[in-house]
């Protein structure tokens, strides 16, 4: 049993790297796009608010799997060709950007009203008060929700297996199939996912403590 694991460690390692690449790329993109959408949703310009709202309502309600299949096998009909890996990153990114947007918006709403009023009172514009007063403080309450988005991306990336991206879940299934040690492979990859989630949670706690107001 152990030697089967050792023999296939290379394949599993590649699967893990692909999972991590999917997770990191999608999460980084989701942070940028999600924050942008959150800014849209609180901006004074109506069409931008509408764009933000439509984006969130569509993407947080669509199942990731149906989006993956639509993008992987449907978009080529429209002449849009991407590698399966890119497709998975794009879908994960879009879906988690909608959750990031809601996390950021929740953080913005959690900043006491007086902060925004004070920022306005000293003459800061919308963009200035957002960038220098509101968002830095919002970051504090956003850490936990964003950690959850991160863990969601890591676990969600396993769905890329359904469009044959060789990430951890897909690799475990393939290797298990070849070696007749499915149970072992699934347990090992489950432990890896749990480790990723714990690392994400731990990093979040450290970050939260760093950002906490020193009194």
């Amino acid at each position, binding site marked *: 049993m152990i030697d089967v694991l050792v023999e296939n460690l290379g394949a599993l390692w590649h699967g893990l790297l692909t999972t991590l690449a999917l997770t990191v790329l999608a999460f980084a993109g989701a942070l940028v796009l999600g924050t942008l959408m959150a800014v849209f949703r609180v*901006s004074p310009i109506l069409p931008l608010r509408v764009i933000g709202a439509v984006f969130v309502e569509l993407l947080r*309600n669509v199942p990731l799997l149906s989006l993956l299949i639509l993008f992987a096998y449907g978009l080529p009909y429209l002449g849009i060709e991407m590698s399966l890996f890119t497709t998975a990153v794009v879908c994960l990114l879009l879906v988690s950007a909608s959750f990031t947007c809601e996390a950021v918006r929740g953080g913005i*709403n959690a900043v006491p009203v007086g902060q925004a009023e004070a920022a*306005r009172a000293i003459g800061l514009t919308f963009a200035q008060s957002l960038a220098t007063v509101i968002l830095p403080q919002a970051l504090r309450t956003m850490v936990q929700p964003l950690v*959850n988005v991160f863990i969601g991306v890591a676990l969600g990336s396993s769905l890329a297996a359904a469009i044959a991206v060789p990430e951890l879940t897909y690799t475990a*299934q393939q290797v298990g199939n070849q070696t007749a040690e499915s149970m072992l492979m699934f347990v090992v990859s489950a432990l890896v996912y749990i480790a990723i989630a714990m690392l994400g949670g731990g990093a979040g706690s450290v970050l939260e403590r760093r950002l906490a107001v020193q009194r």
Partner: protein
Amino acid sequence: MSERAVRVLFDEPGPRGRRRIRVLTVLIIMTIVAALVWAWTTLSATGELAWPKWKPFVQQWAVWFMLAGLKGTLIVALVASVVAFPLGALLAVGRSGRNAVVRWVCTAYIEIFRSVPTLLLVYTFLFALPGIGINLGIFGKLVVPITMINAAVIAELVRAGINALDSGQREAAYAVGMTGAQTMRLVIMPQAIRLVIPALVTQLVAIVKDSTLGYVVSYPELMKQANLLANNTKLLLQAFVVVSAIYVVINFCLTRLAMWLEIRLRRSPGGGRRSQLRAEEEVEHDLAAVVTPH
């Protein structure tokens, strides 16, 4: 919620500000329209947007076919939630209880199954467990993993509700002579669950999304039916656009229901108004630490 944020982030604009907002509004609408027109013409050139390619999906047999899938999805979601909700509540009670062994087992279960992808567990039921004699039917291979994972998530939601309650509630129950179990059943749980009802409804969205894994195990729910329909009509793009739209509508309604419940439950009086409000603030903070989007 956003309206409040919108109003405090910028002043009621003056004449110049209003003009600037108007100009930007027009510019952005023009950009959106231009982008849509461009997308429409480019995509039309592929011929995929033409009506004949969409018409099959409004024909009677196709509608019935999708309705059968919808039925499958609803059954999976219903069975999974009917089992996962009580199971999750039990796990939460066990984790908050005084028995160390029960607490340890519940904590281990919750922490493990909260961090495992549903697909991996589905694969385990599909490919690994039959090897050791556990071979459920297709329905079980889909519903059992979904239930196991969502029970762990729901447990954490309920526990956030339990932790958010004022400790005076528990103390008062003990003071009138209730046992630990009575306190949990009669005092703590009714209030805790009430606090997290909106979050539990939101969890239904996650369960509906998980049910799409029927595509992997070949259980005839919406996703699988869409796939069959796509193979049948050779209209893959259209089939999956239609099915994605159906999911968005279902989940949108569930999300709205959760928001409505949240406002309603907050408004209605229940016990001490102030402690209730404080608990709600706390539960919001705790929930933020639990809800994992998929």
